[in-house]
C-alpha cells in the first residue's frame, strides 16, 4: 500500500532525527547491544517463573533478583508513554535504583467542564500519575498516606516478592494516615499494569485511588511504537448535584472515564499519518467490563497483562473487551487520516449522568398536558418524547437549568452537529501534518467525502422514492 510505504519512510526519518538529538547514534547503539545478552536472559528468568531452573540461584535472588542493568532511560531505552489527561510520575536514580514517591490524598478533580468532585488520588491527580519504568529496573516507591483513613498500594499484575504485594492485612500492615511505606522490587516483566489501593478497596478505588504502571521492554522484539498511549478505564457514581463519588453504589454507575475524564473532556490522541500507534487499556472499574471499539481501523491485540501475545495469535479486531482487572494493548499503523472515535460499545457507557429514574417518554403526545402543567409549573416542558438527543443541546445553550455541578446527558459540540455521546469516548486524530505542541482541530474532509443530504437529482438518478 502506498500509505504504508510512506509511513515507513516517515518512521525511519523521525527515528534518526530523534536519535541524533539524543547524542551520538553510535554510542547509543553500542550500549543497547552490550546489555542485550543480559537483558534477554534476565527477561527469560523473570517472566518464566518456574522454580526448576538449571542455573544455581539463591532463594532470595529468586524472590527478589538484583538488577543487572542500569536504570532504563526514556528516549534511549523506550519511547515514553503518553497518558492523555495525565502525566508520568517523576523519578530519580539513587544508587542505581529508580526512586518514586506516591502521595495518596484527597483531590479536587474535574471529570469534565461543569462536573468536579472531591476524589481520592495520588500526587494531586486522579487517577495517580503513571509509573513508568523499564524491565530490569529496580524500583523503590515511597507511599505517603495523606488520606483520612489507612491505605495500602497493590501493584496489580506485577511479579514481585509476596511482601511487596500491598494487600493490607494479608501481606503488610496498613499505612496509617500520616505514615510513609517503602516498596522496593525489581521489575521482571514488561507490559501494562496498574497500582491501586488494596485497603477498603471498594471505597478507595470508587473514589479514584489508582493509577497505571507501564513497564517497557528492555529490548523489544517488536518494532517500537511512535505513539504509545495509555488509558485507565473507570466508572463512578456521582448523583446529579453532588460533588463526591458515592462508593456505596453497586450497579448504577453514571460517569465512565478514560483516565478519569468523561467526554468531551477526554484529550484526543493526536497521531501523524503512518505512525505506529500503541494504545494500552487497563480496566479497574468497579462492576463493568468495557468493549472498547476503535473506528476506522483494524488493530492487533498485542499484549495482555499476562505478557506479549505471540504474533501468530494476535487477532485482528475492531473492538477489544477489557474486563475488570485486565489490561489489553492494541497496535496499528495510523494509515487513514481523520477524526476517529474510540469508545466503549456499551451505549450507556457513552452517556454522562444518565438518570435511570426518568420514565420512558418515547412517543408520548403531551402537547395539551404541557399547557395544563405550565399553569402550575411555568418552567415545565415534556422531554424525551422523541429521544434524548436534544437534551444536551438544551443544556449547552442554557435553555434549561440543571442542578449545579452536573452534566446530565451532556455531550459536546462537534464540527457538524452536537455530539450526543459522553463518558467513554475519545478521538484518534490522524493528520498528515501535526504540531506536536497543539491538539489538531476538527478534520477537514476532502471534498465529496462527507455524507450529506442527497440531492433530488441523485435520488432521481438512482430511482429512490422518498
Amino acid at each position: 500500500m502506498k500509505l504504508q510505504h510512506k509511513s515507513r519512510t516517515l518512521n525511519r526519518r523521525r527515528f534518526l532525527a530523534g536519535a541524533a538529538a539524543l547524542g551520538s547514534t553510535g554510542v547509543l547503539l553500542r550500549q543497547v547491544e552490550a546489555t542485550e545478552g543480559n537483558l534477554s536472559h534476565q527477561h527469560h528468568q523473570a517472566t518464566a517463573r518456574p522454580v526448576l531452573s538449571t542455573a544455581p540461584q539463591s532463594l532470595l535472588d529468586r524472590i527478589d533478583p538484583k538488577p543487572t542493568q542500569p536504570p532504563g532511560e526514556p528516549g534511549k531505552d523506550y519511547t515514553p508513554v503518553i497518558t492523555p489527561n495525565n502525566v508520568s510520575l517523576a523519578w530519580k536514580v539513587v544508587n542505581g535504583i529508580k526512586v518514586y514517591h506516591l502521595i495518596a490524598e484527597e483531590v479536587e478533580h474535574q471529570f469534565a467542564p461543569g462536573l468536579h468532585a472531591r476524589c481520592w488520588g495520588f500526587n494531586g491527580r486522579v487517577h495517580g500519575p503513571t509509573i513508568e519504568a523499564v524491565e530490569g529496573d529496580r524500583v523503590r516507591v515511597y507511599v505517603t498516606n495523606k488520606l483520612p483513613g489507612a491505605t495500602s498500594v497493590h501493584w496489580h499484575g506485577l511479579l514481585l516478592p509476596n511482601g511487596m504485594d500491598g494487600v493490607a492485612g494479608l501481606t503488610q500492615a496498613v499505612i496509617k494516615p500520616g505514615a510513609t511505606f517503602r516498596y522496593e522490587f525489581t521489575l521482571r516483566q514488561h507490559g501494562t499494569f496498574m497500582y491501586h489501593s488494596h485497603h477498603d478497596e471498594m471505597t478507595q478505588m470508587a473514589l479514584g485511588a489508582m493509577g497505571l504502571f507501564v513497564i517497557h521492554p528492555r529490548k523489544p522484539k517488536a518494532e517500537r511504537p511512535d505513539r504509545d498511549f495509555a488509558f485507565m478505564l473507570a466508572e463512578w457514581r456521582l448523583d446529579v448535584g453532588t460533588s463526591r463519588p458515592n462508593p456505596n453504589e453497586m450497579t448504577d454507575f453514571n460517569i465512565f472515564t478514560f483516565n478519569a475524564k468523561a467526554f468531551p473532556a477526554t484529550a484526543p490522541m493526536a497521531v501523524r499519518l503512518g505512525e505506529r500507534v500503541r494504545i494500552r487499556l487497563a480496566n479497574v472499574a468497579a462492576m463493568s467490563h468495557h468493549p472498547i471499539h476503535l473506528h476506522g481501523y483494524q488493530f492487533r491485540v498485542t499484549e495482555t497483562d499476562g505478557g506479549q501475545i505471540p504474533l501468530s495469535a494476535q487477532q485482528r479486531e475492531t473492538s477489544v473487551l477489557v474486563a475488570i482487572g485486565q489490561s489489553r494493548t492494541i497496535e496499528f499503523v495510523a494509515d487513514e487520516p481523520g477524526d476517529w472515535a474510540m469508545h466503549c460499545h456499551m451505549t450507556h457507557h457513552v452517556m454522562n449522568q444518565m438518570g435511570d429514574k426518568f420514565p420512558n417518554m418515547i412517543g408520548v403526545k403531551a402537547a395539551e398536558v404541557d399547557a395544563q402543567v405550565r399553569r402550575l409549573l411555568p418552567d415545565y416542558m415534556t422531554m424525551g418524547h422523541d429521544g434524548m438527543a436534544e437534551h444536551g443541546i438544551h443544556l449547552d445553550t442554557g435553555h434549561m437549568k440543571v442542578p449545579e455541578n452536573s452534566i446530565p446527558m451532556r455531550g459536546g459540540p462537534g464540527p457538524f452537529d452536537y455530539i450526543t455521546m459522553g463518558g467513554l469516548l475519545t478521538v484518534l486524530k490522524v493528520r498528515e501534518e501535526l504540531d506536536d505542541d497543539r491538539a489538531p482541530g476538527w478534520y477537514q474532509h476532502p471534498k465529496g467525502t462527507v455524507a450529506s443530504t442527497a440531492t433530488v437529482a441523485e435520488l432521481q438518478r438512482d430511482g429512490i422514492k422518498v
Partner: protein
Amino acid sequence: MKCQIVFGLVILMTGLQGCATVAVDPHAGFPQVAQLVNDRGAPELTWTPGVEESPPRLDAISSRLAEGLTEEEAVRIALLNNRELQALYARLGIAHADLVQASLLHNPVIGVTSGFPIAGGIVDLGFGLAMDLIDFLYTPLRKRVATARFEEAKLRVAADVLDAVWRTQTAFYTHQANEQALEMRRQVAAATAASFNLAQRLREAGNLRELDVATEQALAEEAKADLRFAEIATRDSRERLNLLMGLSGEHALLWTVTPARLLDPREAATNADLEARAMKQSLDLAAADQLIVAAAENVRLDRASALFPEVVVGGKGERDGREWEPGPTFILPLPLFDRGQARIARAQAELRQARELRTALAVRIAAIARSTRARLEGYRERALQYRDVVLPVRQRVLEQTQLQYNAMQIGPLDLLRAKEQQIEAGIRYIDALREYWLAQADHTLLLAGRLPPTEAAPAAPTLEQLPRLPFSTLQ
C-alpha cells in the same frame, strides 16, 4: 276627721312615690353599654328602637362590600345590621322596666260593700281604703336590688356585644382560611389531574403500566373529593358570616374577603400582664359583683320584711242604717308560723353562691388568660415557622425537583408530586395562620374583658345557673 287622716296619708305617699319613681325610658342603659364596648375596642354601636322593621342603611356599606371585606368591616356591619344583636338591646328595656316596677308602690286598695235588708229599708253601704304601709319602707330596698340587676343587665349586654364582635371575627378568619384552602385544593386537584392526564398519555404510548395509571387516577379522584369538602366548608363559613352580618339577598352574594393578613413578626401579639388586665377589664366579674350586691340587698330586704311582709293601714266608712261610722283599719300578719326564716336562708344561700361563683370566675379568667397567651404564642411560632421556614424550604424543594427533572434524573410525575406537596404545605400554613388569628381574637376578647365563649373554655357557665339572669341566645 279620721277619714281625712287616711286620705291625707294616701296623698302624702303618692307625693313621696312621685319623688321615688323611675321614669320609663326606651333608651335606658344603651348609652352606657355603647360606652362600655367602645372603651373596650369595639366600634360605635347604633340602635334606633322603634324602627327595627325598616331596612338598615346597607347602601352605604354595599359599595364597600364589593371592594373586599376586611375583618374590621365585617365587625362594623355585624354591629350595625345583626338583628339578633339589635334584639339584644331590648333586654336593657326589660331590665329597666323591672327597675321602674321596683320603684312603684303597690296601689292602695279601695273596697265597697253594700247590704240590702230583705225587710226593706235603707241600703247598707260600706267602703274601705287600704294600702300597704310597709311597702313604703321596702321600696328603696327593692329599688336597690333592681338597680343592681339593671347594672348587671347592662354589663351582660355589653358582654354579648363583645361576643358578637368575637364571633364575627372568628367567622371571618375561618372563612378567609377556608377560601384560601379551597383555592389551594383546586390547585392540588389541577396537579393530580395533570398527573393523571400525563400518565394516560404515557400509557397510550405504551410506556406505562395500567397499575400506574390507576394509581394516578386514584390520587386525582381523591383530590376532587377533597375539593368538594373544601367547597362545602367554604359555603358554610360564608353563610355563617352572612348570618352574623345580617346580610341576605343580593347583599349576601356581593362580598369577597381580602386575603389573609400576613404575620408581622414585630407584632408583639401577647400582653405581658394579660392575666391582670383580663381581670381588671372583666365584664363577667363586674356582673358577678352586681349579682353579689343584688343578693346582699335581697338579704337585707328579706330580713327587714321577715316578720311583717305587709302592714296594711286604711280607713273605712260604714253606713249602718242612716249612720255613717268611719274608722281606721289596720292589718298585720301574725308571725306565728312563718317568721321569714326560709326566705332569709334562701337569700343568704344565694349571696354565698354569688360570692363563690365570683371567686371561681376569677380563677377561671386567670387560667384562661394564661392558656390563651400560651396558645397565641404557640400558634404564632407555628405560623411563623411555616411562613419563614417551611414554605421557603418547600419552594426550594420544588425548584430543585424542577432542576432534577430538567436533568432527566426524575420524571414529570415526580415533579408534579413535588408541586402537590408544596401546595399541601401551603394549606397547612393557612391552617396555622387561621389558628393564630383565632387565638388572637380570643386574646383581644380577654383584654376587652370577656371570656372567649368557646367550647373548650365555656364562659362562666355556672353563672348561667343563677335564676333571674337571662342570657343571650345569640349563638
